[in-house]
C-alpha cells in the first residue's frame, strides 16, 4: 500500500500548508480543476502524501477516493518525497535496445530501491522516463539534470559515489 507509514506531517512546513490552502482556495469554485490543483500542490510540496490529498479533498469538497484515483492514475504524481538527488533512467527504444534495463537494474541494486521509490536516507530517488532526446548517447541517465551517457552497468558505481559524498 502506498504511503502506508505516512510521516509527512513532520516533513511539511507551516508555510507549505498555508501555500496549499491558497492553491485549494484558488481552485475551489472551478469544476474539474483537481489535476491542476494536484500539480500545483506537488510543485509546492514536492510530493502528495495522504494528509495533503485529504486536505485537497476537503477543500475542493470531493471524496478523498476521487483524489487518490487521479493521483494513482498519473505517473507524474508521487506520494513519496523526492530524494536529494533525482535519477532519471531513460527506457526509450534507443536506450532500451542498447541495454538500459541492465543499467536500471544496477542502479536499483546499488541504492536498494525500485524505480518510483526514494531511498530511506532520502539521498536518492529513481524514476523511469521515456526519451530524453539524447538517443545517440544511449543508454542515458540524468542525475539532478546532468546527463550521463554511453552507460554500462559497471560504470554506475563510480557515478553514484560522486553523489554519495
Amino acid at each position, binding site marked *: *500500500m*502506498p*504511503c*502506508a507509514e505516512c510521516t509527512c506531517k513532520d516533513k511539511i512546513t507551516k508555510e507549505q500548508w498555508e501555500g496549499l490552502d491558497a492553491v485549494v482556495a484558488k481552485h475551489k469554485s472551478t469544476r474539474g480543476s483537481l489535476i491542476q490543483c494536484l500539480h500545483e500542490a506537488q510543485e509546492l510540496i514536492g510530493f502528495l502524501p*495522504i494528509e495533503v*490529498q485529504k486536505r485537497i*479533498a476537503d477543500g475542493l469538497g*470531493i*471524496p*478523498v*477516493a*476521487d*483524489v*487518490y*484515483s487521479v493521483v*494513482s*492514475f*498519473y*505517473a507524474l504524481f508521487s506520494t513519496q518525497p523526492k530524494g536529494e538527488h533525482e535519477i532519471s533512467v531513460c527506457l526509450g527504444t534507443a536506450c532500451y535496445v542498447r541495454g538500459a534495463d541492465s543499467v536500471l537494474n544496477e542502479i536499483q541494486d546499488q541504492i536498494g530501491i525500485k524505480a518510483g521509490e526514494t531511498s530511506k536516507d532520502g539521498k536518492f530517488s529513481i524514476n523511469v522516463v521515456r526519451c530524453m532526446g539524447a538517443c545517440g548517447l544511449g543508454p542515458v541517465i540524468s542525475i539532478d539534470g546532468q546527463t550521463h551517457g554511453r552507460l554500462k552497468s559497471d560504470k554506475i558505481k563510480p557515478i553514484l559515489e560522486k553523489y554519495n559524498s
Partner: protein
Amino acid sequence: MVNLTINGKSISVLEGTTIIEAARTAGIRIPSLCYMKGINEIGACRVCLVEVEGARGLVTSCTTKVAEGMVVRTNSPAAKQARKAVVELIISNHPYDCLKCVRSGKCELQQLANDMGIREIAYEGERAHHEQDKSTFSIVRDPDKCILCRRCVAVCAKVQGVGAVNTQGRGFETVVAPEFELPMNSTSCAMCGQCVLVCPTGALTERDSTGEVWRAINDPAKHVVVQTAPAVRVALGEEFGMEPGSLVTGKMVAALRRLGFDKVFDTDFTADLTIIEEGTELLHRALSGGKLPMITSCSPGWIKYCEHYYGDCLDHLSTCKSPQQMFGALAKTYYAKKAGIDPGSIYSVSVMPCTAKKFECERPEMVSSGFKDVDAVLTTRELARMIRESGLDLNELEPEEYDAPFGISTGAAVIFGATGGVMEAALRTVYEIITGTDLGENLDFVDVRGMEGIKQMSVKLPEKLAAPYDKLSGLELKFAVAHTLKNASQVMDMVRSNTSPWHFIEVMACPGGCIGGGGQPIGTDYDRRVMRIEGTYAADRSLKMRKSHDNPAVRELYNDYLIEPLGHKSHELLHTHYEDRSQV
C-alpha cells in the same frame, strides 16, 4: 423525434436517446454489463457494441446517441463476434469459481457467458490479484471478481453522494477501492450496501452470517429468537419467483419455524414501540425547547453517514435506538423474564433488508441487556439462501402467525419499510396525542409517500389545545422526508445552517427506504421499489390496527415493565448516543 433503423426495423425516438434505449423501445435487447440508465453510461465494459452504418468501427450503444437516418445492426456477425470477444477477455481476468460463488445464478457475467454460448476459456493469462477486504461487518469486497464496470462507483457517488470508492491505479493494476486502498472499515462508507445491489458479479457481497445462525439453531442449549423487519415481507417472495411486492408475511413465518427458530417475532412490534418513544421525544423537545428539528434514527446507514459528515449535528438525531436494537435489548430482558429463560442462553437473530444493520448490531454500546443485544443479522438474501438450503419452497408453505407477545403489530409499523413510513406512523400517533381526537378513517398522510427524493408537508394544529399541549396551539408543524444519502445531505445542509423550516425530519439511507435496502434481493431497481412500496401500503390497509398506540402488546409492555415512555427503563434499554466520526 429522430428516425432510425435498428435491425431493419424503422423506429422513431426522442432526440438524445442512446442506441441501447432506442433498441429497447423496439423490443431489441442489446447485451450490456456496466450500463445503468441515468447512472452509469460510460461505455466502460464494451459489451454493448453494435454496428452503425458509416461509423468507423463498432460503437458502444450505451453512449452513442441516435441520429436521423442512422442504420444500426445489433446482430451482424462483426458485432456479435466483438461482443463475445469482449466477454471472453473479461472472463480471462476472472476466477472460475462459479460453483462456490454466492452470486452464482444471479451473476450478470455468468448470464452473459451463457447467453453468448461461451463454452471454453478463450484466453488464459496472468490475472490481477488483490486481497479481499473483510474488514467490515457489512460488506465483503473481492476485487478478483471485479470487472471494473464502475457501477458501484457510480451509485455511491451519484445516488448516495458519498464516493467511498473509486478506481485506483491504472491499467492492469486498476482496482475499485477506497482512497489509498484502505480497508473499508477505516473509511466513511455508510455500509448502506447499494453497491452490493448493483454489482453485476460477486465482487461486492454482504458478509455472510448464515453459518453462525445455523450453529446457534443447531445448539440445543440456545434459545434462538428471530425478528423480521417490515421491508423483508414485501421482497422475500422475489427470491422464490413471486411478483415484486408480493406480501409473504405468513409464509416467511412458516419458513422460519421450519428452519428451527424457537420463536418467530416481528420487528414491527418494536417499530410500534419506536413510534411511542420517538413521538414522545418529539413532543418533549417541542414543549421544552429542546433541539429541533428532530431527525429519525432507524436507518443505521443514515446514522453512520451523519456521524461522518454531520458530526456537529448529532444532537438533532432522536436518541431512540432503531427497532432492531430495541427488540434486541428487550429480548434478553423483558422477554427472558416473562418466558423464564436465562438471557445468556438466548441467541437473537434479525432478518433485515439492510447491510448496515450488521454494522449496527456490532456497535459496542448495543449491549444494554448486559449481553450483545442482537447476535446476528441476516439480510433478505441470506434468509432466502437458508430457506433454499433446507429444501423449502416459500410458494408451497401455508401461512402461519407470529409468536406472542412480540408478534403483535399495527399497520403503522409495516409502513416503516417505505420512505415516509416512519413519518406517517409518527403523525398518526402524535396528532392523536396532541389533539386528543381520533383520526378515524383519515390515517393516510399521502404527501409523505412515494419516490420523490425530498418530500415536505405541514399539519396545522387546532387553535385550542388542552394542557400540556396548549403551548402548541395553532402551530403549523412542518415535516420533511428524505431518502438516499444525497438527498439527506441537502436537508442536513439546511439543518446545519439553521435555515431548515422543519420540526421533524425522516431520513432513510436507501432509495425508496428499507424496501430498497442493500440487503434486498439482487435485481432491486426503481420498478421493483415502487411495487414493494405498493405492497407495503396494501399490507397497512389490510390491518385492523393501524396506529402504534393501539398496539395492546406495546401497552402491556409499558404496564408491566417500562412504566412510561422516556422513563428510566426506556432510557436504559431503548435509547442510545452517537459518535462524531468526522475525523475519519
